[in-house]
């Protein structure tokens, strides 16, 4: 529920313009909000991955300086669970969002939107979640069914939050 928040008028702060908000905003939600135009395929993604990601995440996504990205599907309920993009992540949109904001590690926010779509597609493909010829864009990415989509239980209701 939206809490009641008293309106304030201090004449402090400056209204943001649409252009400012657009340039600022890199938050993508699971419903696909704020996914940009552009698209990418696993094939295009492989070229980028091999060049800009493999050094840390391994040729086959097995990990290194960066975490492993592939191989955990089916392991969560075992004695040796592997939490990776394929096994654990509930939304494919998070992949686009995270890679755009934080990867490649030493050069974040340097990829074009097409490149982020492509490398996201390649990681999904390495996990066997989308086929070789899938095209990822603002429409298709939110529709990808992640294996662990229903794996999370929200604890919001269970939290004991005391007032101040």
């Amino acid at each position, binding site marked *: 529920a939206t809490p009641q*928040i008293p309106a304030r008028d201090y004449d402090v702060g400056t209204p943001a313009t649409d252009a400012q908000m657009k340039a600022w905003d890199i938050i993508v939600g699971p419903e696909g909000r704020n996914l940009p135009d552009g698209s990418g395929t696993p094939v295009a993604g492989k070229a980028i991955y091999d060049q800009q990601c493999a050094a840390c995440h391994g040729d086959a996504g097995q990990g290194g300086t960066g975490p492993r990205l592939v191989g955990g599907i089916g392991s969560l309920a075992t004695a040796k669970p592997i939490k990776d993009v394929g096994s654990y992540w509930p939304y494919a949109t998070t992949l686009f969002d995270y890679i755009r904001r*934080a990867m490649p*590690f030493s050069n*974040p926010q340097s990829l074009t939107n097409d490149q982020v779509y492509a490398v996201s597609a390649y990681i999904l493909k390495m996990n066997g979640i989308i086929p070789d010829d899938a095209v990822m864009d603002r429409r298709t990415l939110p529709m990808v069914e992640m294996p662990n989509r229903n794996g*999370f239980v929200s604890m919001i209701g269970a939290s004991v939050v005391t007032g101040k």
Partner: protein
Amino acid sequence: EGLAAGAVLVPSARATEAPPAIPSWMQAQGADVNAHPYGQPAAFEAEVVRERMKSRTLTAGASFTPLQHLHGTITPNGLFYERDHGGVPTIGPAAYRLLVDGMVDRPMIFTLSDLKRLPAVSARHFMECSGNSGTEWTKPTGRTVQETHGLLSCSEWTGTKLEIVLGIAGVKPGAGWCVAEGGDAAALDRSIPLEHALKIGAMLAYAQNGEALRPEQGYPVRLVLPGFEGNTNIKWLRHLELRRGPAMSKEETAYYTELLPDGKAEQFNFVMRAKSVITYPSGSQKLDGTGFYEISGLAWSGSGRIKAVDVSVDGGKTWQPATLQGPIEPICLTRFRLPWRWNGGSAVLQSRAVDETGYVQPTLKSLVGQYGLHAHYHNNAIQSWQVETSGDVINVHA
């Protein structure tokens, strides 16, 4: 590179080893007044520093507060624990901007001067990484309390309330979450349930223990969510976006969720549950002979005030109520103390916190029963320190 072992207690020197009655430092002028316009610790305290946890990179990792060397409840700013995902950015105060947008009537940009001009509030609160004690689920791992519990610190925070900034922007009906995003190389973001955030007194803090935030703590502005897991207290805050639901960012799906034995995971377990730990005597310290000791430690809860702390010196067979140092503040470290006479035998020291909701800090066994061995986060189990007959104190599971 791992954590170095904590300091061994200095054996108390006898008066026969005393320096001359009139020592050299009384026979000549000392250092000039204001030799250090910004003062530093005594050179003799060089071992009282944060220590880095081994991690894959130099910029995504954590440094731990040396709790075994600290007294009272405030953490000096230089020793506040640190958890970074993309290193510590250098942000000039004049270049700082915060965008508040999404489901609001008036999207706004605030400068640092803007935020400082708004009504301010101060409050003392602990902050704890939900990964604190994460190494301790399966076997005793940390050698010192810095290693086992050092992702924990406590400050007096000053800032303006989230409520005020949102009141300026005007939140639209239907907005239930606020995504907070940092201005670091990880652009780290977390979704916060709006109702809870306001209830706990969420703050846009620009000061810590009186002075400006330190760079490692989010200079110039961080979100402070009293009682919520450390990671949600977004540092270098650049963006608040009002939304209907959570953004499902990497840090609230891939990380900071608790995997249960059945393969399901708990998500949005924001509130840090009641916990305590004995800091003296603690791992890698050494008792200097039998006799009187004051057991001392810290207790805290994300759900209000600490109500009681019990201490056991026999591994949990019997418990005694510790004295709590007042004033006891909500969502704040609370120092507890218990006098003890060590008879030279082996002893297992434990502490158990109870908070104002009646919640009792669990044993590791019961916690593992509930969460299994792979939850990683939110280990608030009772910690055991074994005193050996030599006086050495070691980390054990008991």
